[in-house]
């Protein structure tokens, strides 16, 4: 959903308001996914950040810097809005990841169904031995 008053930012840029409707795939992860704080406590790990956080940061940087598919300022603004609403009960950096996936889905950069399929494939891969 776009607001026509905010579409023209020059140079063909279109500013979208984030779609705040829940996305079922991400909602399921929000509800059932185990966050790093819980896993670290259960397994006695002291690292404050999940190992995937570095990859997440690199993905955010690359999305902004390389083809400018998702500019930093837009992503951060949407992360703020989503962190205060849909993902307010999710700790950081998990909510940063959910907000990134949310921003990519509503822009059509990835499709919710294909993301779900890919997650199943990756899960099978990671648990196959």
């Amino acid at each position, binding site marked *: 959903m776009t607001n026509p008053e905010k579409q023209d930012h020059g140079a063909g840029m279109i500013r979208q308001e984030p779609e705040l409707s829940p996305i079922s795939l991400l909602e399921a992860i929000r509800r*059932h996914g185990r966050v790093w704080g819980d896993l670290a406590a259960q397994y006695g790990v002291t690292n404050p950040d999940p190992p995937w956080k570095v990859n997440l940061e*690199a993905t955010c940087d690359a999305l902004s810097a390389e083809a400018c598919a998702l500019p930093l300022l837009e992503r951060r603004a949407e992360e703020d*809005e989503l962190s205060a609403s849909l993902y307010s009960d999710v700790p950081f950096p998990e909510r940063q990841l959910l907000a990134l996936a949310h921003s990519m889905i509503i822009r059509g950069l990835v499709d919710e169904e294909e993301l779900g399929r890919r997650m199943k494939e990756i899960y099978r891969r990671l648990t196959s031995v």
Partner: protein
Amino acid sequence: MSDKHSKDEHGHRPPAPMVDEVSDFEVLEMAVRELAIEKGLFSAEDHRRWTEYVHTLGPLPAARLVAKAWLDPEYKKLAVTDGVKASLDVGVDWINSPPTNFGTPSDYCNLRVLEDTPKVKHVVVCTLCSCYPRPILGQSPEWYRTPNYRRRLVRWPRQVLAEFGLQLPPDVDIRVADSNQKTRYIVLPVRPAGTEGWTEDQLAEIVTRDCLIGVAVPKPGVTANAKRPVHPAVHPVQHGH
């Protein structure tokens, strides 16, 4: 415990504990990344380059810059007049470093070093998003990213600093520096009493990340950041209004 008991049957020390479980979040991160690469939003090589860059980031270069400035008045002059040039001495090249070799879109190449005095205290924020001097200070802490900190610090800096445990006398001026895409800041705090004769290494240890943001001041014996509570903003975030 004897060495015999501290080693496993292969003669190695037991490994550090690890999470033996695949989480949905771990899988989601991988899926987003793989699809982005397949769709050409960035390449695998791009991602590898950025990952290496993120791995190199941390607060040590900024701590080292402050320690050097405390020990060398000429270097201190350089730091406060040309932070980019002074950064070279602590291994940070804002202009020619990877991954882009011309700064990054979010870490552009104008670093300013804000010198505190006994009567002036600086503190850094980014009211727009979470701009931060990553090349010299690493990744921003969670609280720095929150709208709560960003909005309230510029309105009530003295009170917010007090919440961080930094009670400043009324005759100390507080100056808030608002970061942006081109300009990033670190604070050069006043060297604390009790550090006379210390080496650069010793001094660098007490210059924590929070001291460099300006929400704490260095103290002998304090070498870690305090855990900060993260508060939600009361009012909804409405960017673009």
